[in-house]
């Protein structure tokens, strides 16, 4: 097990470097620069900016100047647009916002999704099953850029219960709508995954064995069926959580949250090279770590899997 983890961690490093290199290449291919604006700037000034940031050098020198501090000091540099703010500071500041909203949304999705999915599986082809799966279908089909504004229209603009946007700390009414918007699709997915997983497990031999041993139905469901039935949910959790924690562009934009996703989209539009690379690298690391955690969790959930 330990060897497996170490091996996976070691693979992470070249993967991240490849991701950074590809990102760097794409930024270089995109026309325009962080100083390109509606207003043209004088030629000499443009030249001096290029010199200052090394943009006048050949591509391999520029690449080395980007990649070396990252390898050597894990230093992603200073944002070009938000002058004077180091990339690490920006990530450290915006990550808690994205992560808390994302985590809360996912916990809510797990709670509701697993409950609804299990009930649907246990009462297959009942009213409950149809109703919850219809709702889940709706949840999957309504994109969050529709759901978010709908929730705002209902709860803020019509009922005046909740604020329509802005971040005001984790424990505030401002958090409710973005969390709901974000969790809807995951809730729906998890419900469907749980239902499918449970249905398959409930028909398997070892559940029949458990039942014939005379175990109580509750024990059969919770100790045996649910544990195995959740395997698809677990494999879904890794990438989903990585995605949620590192910020979601749409929800953060609709609700004006100061999270990573918001910075990411602005950084791309601003051609803010260090910030783009920093955020991409961060997301990649999170994604790889989450996948690793999922693989470890597999081993615990399924006695047949051993590394």
């Amino acid at each position, binding site marked *: 097990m330990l060897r497996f983890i170490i091996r996976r961690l070691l693979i992470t490093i070249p993967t991240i470097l490849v991701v950074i290199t590809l990102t760097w290449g794409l930024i270089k291919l995109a026309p325009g*620069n962080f100083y390109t*604006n509606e207003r*043209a700037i004088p030629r000499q000034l443009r030249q*001096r900016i290029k010199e200052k940031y090394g943009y006048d050098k050949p591509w391999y020198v520029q690449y080395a100047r980007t990649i070396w501090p990252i390898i050597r000091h894990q230093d992603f540099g200073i944002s070009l647009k*938000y002058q004077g703010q180091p990339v690490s500071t920006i990530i450290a500041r915006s990550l808690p916002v994205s992560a808390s909203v994302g985590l809360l949304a996912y916990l809510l999705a797990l709670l509701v999704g697993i409950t609804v999915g299990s009930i649907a599986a246990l009462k297959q082809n009942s009213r409950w099953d149809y109703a919850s799966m219809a709702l889940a279908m709706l949840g999957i089909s309504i994109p969050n850029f529709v759901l978010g504004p709908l929730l705002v229209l209902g709860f803020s*603009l019509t009922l005046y219960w909740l604020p329509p946007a802005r971040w005001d700390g984790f424990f505030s009414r401002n958090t409710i709508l973005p969390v709901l918007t974000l969790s809807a699709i995951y809730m729906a997915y998890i419900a469907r995954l749980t239902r499918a997983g449970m249905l398959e497990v409930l028909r398997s031999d070892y559940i029949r064995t458990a039942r014939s041993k005379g175990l109580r139905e509750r024990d059969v469901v919770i100790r045996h069926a649910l544990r195995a039935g959740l395997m698809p949910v677990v494999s879904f959790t890794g990438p989903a959580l990585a995605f949620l924690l590192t910020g979601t562009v749409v929800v953060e934009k609709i609700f*004006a949250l100061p999270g990573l996703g918001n910075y990411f989209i602005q950084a791309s539009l601003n051609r803010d090279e260090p910030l783009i690379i920093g955020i991409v690298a961060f997301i990649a690391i999170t994604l790889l770590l989450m996948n690793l955690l999922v693989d470890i969790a597999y081993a615990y959930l399924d006695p047949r899997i051993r590394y």
Partner: protein
Amino acid sequence: MFKLTFKQTTIGLLLFSLVLASISCAASALKNEEFFGKVEVPRDNVMRYISGDEPESLDPQLSSGQPEGRIFMALYEGLVEYDAKTMDPVPAIAERWDENNDSSEFVFHLRRNARWSNGDSISAKDFVYTFRRGLAPELLARSASLASYIRQAENYNQGAVFVKDPKTNQFLLEKDFGTQATTIPLSQAPLSAAAPEYKPSAAEPTPDKDTEFHQRMHSPERLALPGDEKSRKAILAKNPKLQEAVIGKEFVPVGPEDLGIEAVDDYTLRISLKQSTPFFVGVLANNFFRLVPQKIVERYGRDWTNPAHIVTNGPFKMKSWRPYNELAVERDPMYWDTANVRLDGIRFFPMSDQPTMMNLYRVGEVDAVSNHAIISAWIDEVRYRKDYMAAPEAAVIYIVMNTTKPPMNDVRVRHAFDLALDKDTAMKWRKIVKPLRGITPHGIFAGYPEPKVAEFDAAKARQLMTEAGYPVITNPDGTFSCPSFPIDQVEYTFPTAPSNKITAEFWQSQWKKHLGLTVPLRSMEFKTFVDARSKLDYKGFAFGAWGADYMDPFTFLSLFYTAEHDNNTGWWDKRYVDLLDEANRNPDRAKRFALLAQAEQLLVDAQPIISVETATVNWTKKPYVKGMYPNAGSLFPWKHIYFERDRSKWDYGTPSLAANPTDQSSDSTLGN
């Protein structure tokens, strides 16, 4: 077994649509309301304002955007401030100023009680430091060109060099080499030769004292050459006389002390310009000229704007900053006019999504939103309410044409495409915008004569196309076609945005209808677009827009002063430039405007652009927010703004922009 029957499905669908209908009913109930959303005066005296995009930096000399500008007007002050209604320069740290006879030199008299937020007093030296810092080549300030009217500012900023004879310590002079043959402004004429340079005023019967520096300023301009060897050699190669003269000479970099900025004494600042600039004082209200604290900048370097270190001099000072979320400022007790600052603080919310801004406004979470917060789909919902701000903006939208490539290098073709646009219909369809004739916005500069432009005339447009060699044929069904026109050589390029796409389609349909030509549309990501347009790397037509840097027609006319920078058309005419120069030398406002208009007429006739529309401001403020006016630049002197708790004194409708001194004085007696 349970199955949804047809009946149950119908009931479900009905229920769902009922929910939707009730929501939209509640939303449309708003239609009859006087204001857009909740109106409740906040209990505390802290204004909540959506300032637009996240500020790039809190250094007023480094960020040039409007969102930052709005915040800087709370935190920093310069010699002058924008008037709340007209945006003309009004006294700030400078109590008054004198202007010499040809507007090439200005003397500012500073108030003695101006202080920094840490209590230090402000003197003329602070301005000398700030101006020099802003122009320093290593600062890389993007708006440094705004200061280029100041003597040697451009040369210093671009790292140019003077040419000195090491034996005699004499510098080569510009006039001897004829690199720039223009009338010498008074600021460069010998002091004795100039008759009284300043008109005596009541406050100051005799001009300010003469200094050694001043005498040096009043001498012929030194010759400056580019600092880098390559460009210098290119210039010398073209001028043999100059090449010979520089042999054996020394190149001395233009330094900060060569700039035409002088602290005559602690409270007198003299600025020498390289040319006549009648609108110069208006330029000085820009962020770039707002004071920065020397001690703090020198101690903390780039980090001086960190909330822990920052020292400011505006009516408000920094309270807290959570980037991308909120920047809070509070009244600064050290500010010289703090007794007249009405709000206890302002919370600036940076935000870029327009519907989100308006949602916050509607539920009463903010008191006012930034300009252009209302998307076109919402305009009708908002514009008839009494909290909508309707006023012209000092900004124009036009189409640039690539005059360097056929077929658009033919002026007849350019005229034809202009004449084939029915702008009256466009105005009606765009609802809130104003017409545009030429490049200067309509209804902004009082007394400025607009150029004569040709009205929409489709028949004439077709005739011109025919004359240019592209006959327009009338089809049997009454439509037109122009088969010989190289339509693959033109397209209309615009930055990606839904609003740009709709207007592009409108113009496309007009050209199709009247010329029988379907100009292809091409949208591009913003920076990609700007990059392509500035390199004239577009075919035919591209989107153009410009906003005023200062309140003078010259800010628009100067777009075509050079062939590069923001010209974007490739069109350049020496006569145009000469007319502009002549206008700026003219001390008489009406005559100057007439000359500027003459230049604009030249531009209209050469038609490198198709004028489309003058923008209008497009935002809302709650009726209890008083002292905030929809001025042409959407920049607000925050100290005059206050919350009115008496409903009868609220603003019902757009407050008048007419300068009215009695209204101002009554404002200051009201409040709380």
